[in-house]
């Protein structure tokens, strides 16, 4: 019973903070994109346009709910709720400080991979239920994408698990706090593993250069073509939440999570997460979209063998390097 209350209270707080963060994160992205393209970004609503996202959400929630006549109504309505569930759900096992963690699962890493990997289901569900050709192609591309990035993601996440010898996310962060961050040492294993994780995270949350299922210049709006109002808001929100939580997971698994000098743990975790989150935008407004087959070649011909080598390298490190044993 205690556990249920703990999870509900922390879940409510963490989810609200995440949603507030992405509201301002979207404002920040638009400002950032504006500056990169020599324009101002939002300036009208509130000081510096800060309330732009609030205005957008209120506007979107007021929109009429249009469902195509030929759509599969139950699936069409279910998909956005599932998208919100799976994107927020990953945050349950992320330690934001030594004490702020909703659920300290002993198989947290597995939970992250499982719940995060489920995101492809609402995406394809939306694509199929819309009964729209653009949406269907988007959904098929989402599956093509998930069978590409899945293996490198799992292999990259195995590296911190091997180095720390635990599947618990807070255990991995504690190990890094007591020894060294995995990004810094062993550097020739940690840096490439982190790079693979980051690329797979971008692919999992459908961000450029891997926003293949959405591809607004090719597929209208991909899987969300037929969605309006609140349901579209949920998909849009889920995408940002997924990116933010993915950044937090990356910070916890490779950058030492809440570990850092001079400031409380929460500050460090937030700082690291936001830095990774900002880099997503930087990448987004700098790179071009890959094609499905290019992503497949990248993931299967390059990232998978490199990931396997990293896993064996990490295993050899804890076996044979005296310092690796600690």
């Amino acid at each position, binding site marked *: 019973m205690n*556990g*249920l209350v703990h*999870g*509900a209270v*922390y*879940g409510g707080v963490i*989810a609200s903070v995440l*949603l507030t963060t992405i509201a301002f994160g979207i404002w920040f992205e638009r400002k950032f994109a504006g500056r990169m393209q020599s324009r101002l970004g939002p300036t009208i609503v509130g000081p510096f346009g800060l309330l732009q996202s609030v205005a957008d959400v209120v506007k*979107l929630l007021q*929109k*009429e*709910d249009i469902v*195509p006549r*030929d*759509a599969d109504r139950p699936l069409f309505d279910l998909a956005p*709720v*599932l*998208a*919100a*569930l799976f994107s*927020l*759900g990953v945050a*349950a*096992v992320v330690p934001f400080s030594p004490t702020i963690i*909703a*659920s*300290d*699962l002993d198989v947290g*890493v597995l*939970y992250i991979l499982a719940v995060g990997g489920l995101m492809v289901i609402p995406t394809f569900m939306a694509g199929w239920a819309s*009964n*729209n*050709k653009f949406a269907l192609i988007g959904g*098929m591309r989402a*599956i*093509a994408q998930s*069978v*590409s990035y*899945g*293996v490198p993601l*799992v*292999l990259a996440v*195995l590296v911190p*698990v091997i180095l720390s*010898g635990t599947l618990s996310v807070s255990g991995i962060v504690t190990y890094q706090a007591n020894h060294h961050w995995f990004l810094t040492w062993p550097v020739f294993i940690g840096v490439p593993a982190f790079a693979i994780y980051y690329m797979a995270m971008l692919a999992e949350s459908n961000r450029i250069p891997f926003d293949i299922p959405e591809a607004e210049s090719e597929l209208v709006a991909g899987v969300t073509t037929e969605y309006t*109002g*609140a349901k579209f*808001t*949920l998909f849009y929100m889920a995408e940002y939440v997924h990116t933010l939580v993915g950044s937090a997971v990356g910070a916890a698994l490779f950058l030492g999570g809440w570990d850092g000098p001079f400031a409380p743990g929460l500050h460090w975790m937030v700082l690291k997460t936001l830095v990774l989150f900002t880099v997503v935008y930087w990448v987004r407004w700098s790179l071009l979209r890959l094609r*499905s087959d290019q992503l*497949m*070649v990248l993931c*299967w011909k390059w990232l998978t*063998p490199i990931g*396997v080598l990293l*896993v*064996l390298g990490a*295993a050899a490190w*804890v*076996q044979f390097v005296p310092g690796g044993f600690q």
Partner: protein
Amino acid sequence: MHAWLSALSFLLVSTLIGVGILAASRAIRVRAKVDSPLKQNTYECGEEPAQVAWMQFHARYYVVALFFVLFDIEAVFLFPWATVLRELGAGAFAAAVTFVLVLMLGWLYALRKEALQWQ
């Protein structure tokens, strides 16, 4: 057990947020006074939709999907190994290296057969 219950209630809260946003929108959203039958049409760039989209669709990546299953099972085997590697020592390391090398031989074969290509 405690942690699993927390995870469960976290997932419930996440679902409630999704449902809550839909409910909030239901309360404040507008409704058109006059409905045009065209509005409920499937979007196809303004044309009348040609057939439905529920058709047979060639998934050109089905071979890759099979490989995905193989490699994911590999990962399932490696996770328990990864957590106890320290205690088990060199024997476990050698076993996993053999296992992964055999799998990578299969990967090399697939690569040479061009099975990892978009067909």
